[in-house]
């Protein structure tokens, strides 16, 4: 009798653990099923018409790539720098604890608050207006804690022996970090940054409040141009879906393209991450 | 030698930038929102009516706050049992290997999935389905709760499973050697020992839920005049959705815009307190896989 409840409990936990996978799979299939018909060459390279209810989504695609790339360009070096400091140089004192606390605090700030901040500080305060630059900077603020965490973790994971070996050969600390630690931590840092890129690609509120909604019929060129991204575009047309199947299809198509972009960036990094973690830690990780 | 010092300073500045950024964010948001908080006083928190276009405008957030609490509360109560059970599976029953990393990757994926995609699916699938089953609008606290639960679930799983894995293996052996079954061992030894980590994951999940914007926005209904909900099928507004909706209509420098910033301040404080609580509970443990 004890045996039966044991098996039941184990089965319950098994089911529960599959729920995230099932949900993810269900959502992807749902979008695929409904949106595949909307995605065509014209869709990807065309411009939105009739307020986005017809046509294509090229500006949004370009906007997404532009803003996310610019964001990572800013967030990555600072994140890696901070991670290096925390992992290599920081003494275990009060100040370090404070820094860590603030990184966590920043991570917990709701994205919409960052959007508000970006609006008052970047759009108005610094006079950048609704622009790709504003969007990228605000996004960078949001992604920063993630890049810091990922970098620090990756650098810490490098076995101490590598450092000792390098130092014993007379290399300075910075040289050791540059030539040994970074190289060893590179896969982990890169995959972590790519996951961060995925988050940046998917962010809506922050971007809408700092980069605006783009200029109709125009592909953003200068970083001071306003631009819309895929998530923003999806949100805007989702609000407008008349009950025409065409507009619905547009929305599904946008969602699918956005999801595809996100998955293209995230899935390889997840797989690579798992591969490397298991190489280092075996199955205990 | 000089480069050493330079590098140390540069990286130190990078690390310290987070402190600066947090202060900037809080400062500017407070600066914009404070005038409204002062002008309208505590009625912002307790007032029943949110009428930015009335003359004089009213900025009562009580129904919205209740909306936030009910949606988040519902989400957490759905996500927590599933999350803890899944965490138990990952930490105790699964044998490692491919299956385990698959489940963990799926959870990681679900964490960063663009919230607008989730909201969109909620809009085109969940809302009509709920409307068909329960009647009414479909847009509801229930819809918001379900969507939020999906978003919070992976967080709870990750942090809880870390906490459970951290319980020393010896305890399990000692318990098994006394004749306890695996589930008894989990229930009476492992879970109580992991209690603080699990609690922290729930609190963090709650914080996430309160701060979540796009996914809830698209499924809760956002009535023009927010009212205090009486059933989970009622439409509501939440703090975050109010900001987004009205942002495009508010004029820069107006009381309405400032009121939105006031909401921002409130959100900042709530999530800061939540994070402080969880941080205090977790106290300096660096979690390898925390999202």
């Amino acid at each position, binding site marked *: 009798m004890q045996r039966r409840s044991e098996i039941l409990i184990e089965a319950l936990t098994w089911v529960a653990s599959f729920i995230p996978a099932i949900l993810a799979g269900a959502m992807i299939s749902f979008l695929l099923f409904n949106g595949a018909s909307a995605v065509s060459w014209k869709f990807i390279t065309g411009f939105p018409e009739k307020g986005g209810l017809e046509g294509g989504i090229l500006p949004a695609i370009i906007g997404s790539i532009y803003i996310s790339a610019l964001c990572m360009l800013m967030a990555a070096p600072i994140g890696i720098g901070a991670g290096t400091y925390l992992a290599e140089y920081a003494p275990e004192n009060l100040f370090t604890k404070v820094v860590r606390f603030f990184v966590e605090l920043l991570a917990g700030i709701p994205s919409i608050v960052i959007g508000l901040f970006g609006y008052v500080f970047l759009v108005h305060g610094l006079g950048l207006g609704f622009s790709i630059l504003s969007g990228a900077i605000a996004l960078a603020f949001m992604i920063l804690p993630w890049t810091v965490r990922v970098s620090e973790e990756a650098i810490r994971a490098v076995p101490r022996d590598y450092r000792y070996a390098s130092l014993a050969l007379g290399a300075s600390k910075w040289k050791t970090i540059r030539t040994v630690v970074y190289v060893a931590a590179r896969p982990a840092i890169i995959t972590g940054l790519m996951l961060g890129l995925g988050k940046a690609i998917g962010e809506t509120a922050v971007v809408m409040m700092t980069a605006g909604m783009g200029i109709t019929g125009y592909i953003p060129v200068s970083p001071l141009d306003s631009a819309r991204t895929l998530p923003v575009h999806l949100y805007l047309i989702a609000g407008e879906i008349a009950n025409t199947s065409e507009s619905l299809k547009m929305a599904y198509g946008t969602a699918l393209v956005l999801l595809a972009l996100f998955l293209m960036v995230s899935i390889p990094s997840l797989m690579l991450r798992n591969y490397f973690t298991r190489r280092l830690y075996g199955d205990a990780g | 030698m000089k480069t050493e010092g330079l590098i140390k300073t540069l990286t130190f500045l990078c690390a310290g930038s987070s402190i600066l950024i947090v202060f900037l964010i809080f400062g500017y948001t407070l600066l914009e929102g404070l005038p409204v908080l002062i002008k309208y006083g505590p009625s912002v928190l307790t007032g029943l009516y949110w009428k930015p276009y009335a003359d004089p405008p009213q900025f009562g957030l009580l129904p919205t706050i209740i909306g936030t609490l009910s949606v988040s509360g519902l989400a957490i109560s759905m996500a927590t049992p599933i999350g803890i059970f899944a965490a138990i599976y990952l930490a105790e029953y699964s044998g490692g290997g491919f299956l385990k990393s698959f489940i963990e990757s799926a959870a990681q994926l679900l964490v960063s999935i663009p919230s607008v995609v989730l909201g969109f699916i909620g809009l085109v699938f969940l809302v009509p389905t709920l409307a068909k089953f329960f009647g009414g609008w479909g847009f509801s606290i229930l819809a918001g709760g379900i969507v939020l639960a999906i978003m919070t679930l992976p967080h709870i799983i990750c942090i809880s499973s870390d906490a459970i894995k951290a319980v020393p293996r*010896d305890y399990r*052996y000692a*318990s098994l*050697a006394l*004749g306890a079954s695996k589930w008894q061992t989990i229930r009476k030894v492992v879970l109580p020992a992991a209690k603080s980590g699990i609690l922290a994951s729930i609190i963090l999940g709650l914080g996430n839920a309160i701060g979540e914007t796009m996914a809830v926005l698209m499924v809760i209904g956002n009535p023009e005049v927010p009212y205090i909900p009486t059933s989970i099928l009622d439409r509501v507004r939440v703090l975050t959705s109010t900001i987004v909706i009205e942002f495009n209509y508010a004029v820069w420098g107006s009381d309405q815009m400032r009121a939105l910033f006031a909401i921002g301040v409130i959100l900042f404080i709530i999530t800061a307190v939540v994070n402080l609580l969880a941080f205090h509970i977790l106290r300096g443990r660096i979690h390898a896989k925390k999202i």
Partner: protein
Amino acid sequence: MQVKKTLLRRALEYKPILKSEKLNVWYGRVHALKDVDMIIPSKRITAIMGPSGCGKSTLLKAFNRLLEAEGARVEGKVYFHDVDIYSDSVDPYVVRRKIGMVFQKPIPLPMSIYDNVAYGLRIGGVKDRRVLDKIVRENLEKVGLWDEVKDRLRDSAFNLSGGQQQRLCIARALAVEPEVLLLDEPTSSLDPASTKRIEELLKRLSRDYTIVVVTHNVHQAMRLAEHVIFIFEGRVVEQGEAERIFKNPKSILTRAYIKGDFS
């Protein structure tokens, strides 16, 4: 005449309570125990000795089916009172209650002293406070801890010293009324004074319980054992009455080990 009587008496009193037949254990690809045939006599102290890594702990864990929890593969038979404990009809939880175990490092559960001792009882469904109180007290007295802790039963078990914790673990194991008590190097992490106390405790307990001690310390084995099993590289090299083995070991290996040529 007298010799025969002693042999006869000894033979009658030497009832095996545990017996293994062709016991083989694998950890993954490592063949930890090879064709082990041995007996453990009832209500005596048996010492399993041998150099580190030879499989002594593995043999011990084979007796209470804890090997399965570690993921090891077991083949062969282990008889407890003539019942093969590895047969499908036997419930491992029941086995573990009849054959208790104390570990090398004292493992107090993260609870109070009282709750530690009461744990096994509560698992078994005992809820009556008075019954629990009585049994907790009895077993703490058995291990000589009662006077030391009776005023702080609610304190965390971690507040005890190493030696006290180990005695607590013994009390905890005894509380479920096992017939056999397995101890895996119970004193190797303790100071000499605590070691002595526990050795004396074991001698007292062997009147009522079958005691099996794994030790890598030959002198401890000499002090405690009435029956000895000497294991080397996963195989039983020699087993039998302690007196005989220590005075007159049959195998060169045994002789060398006792002399201290290797450990």
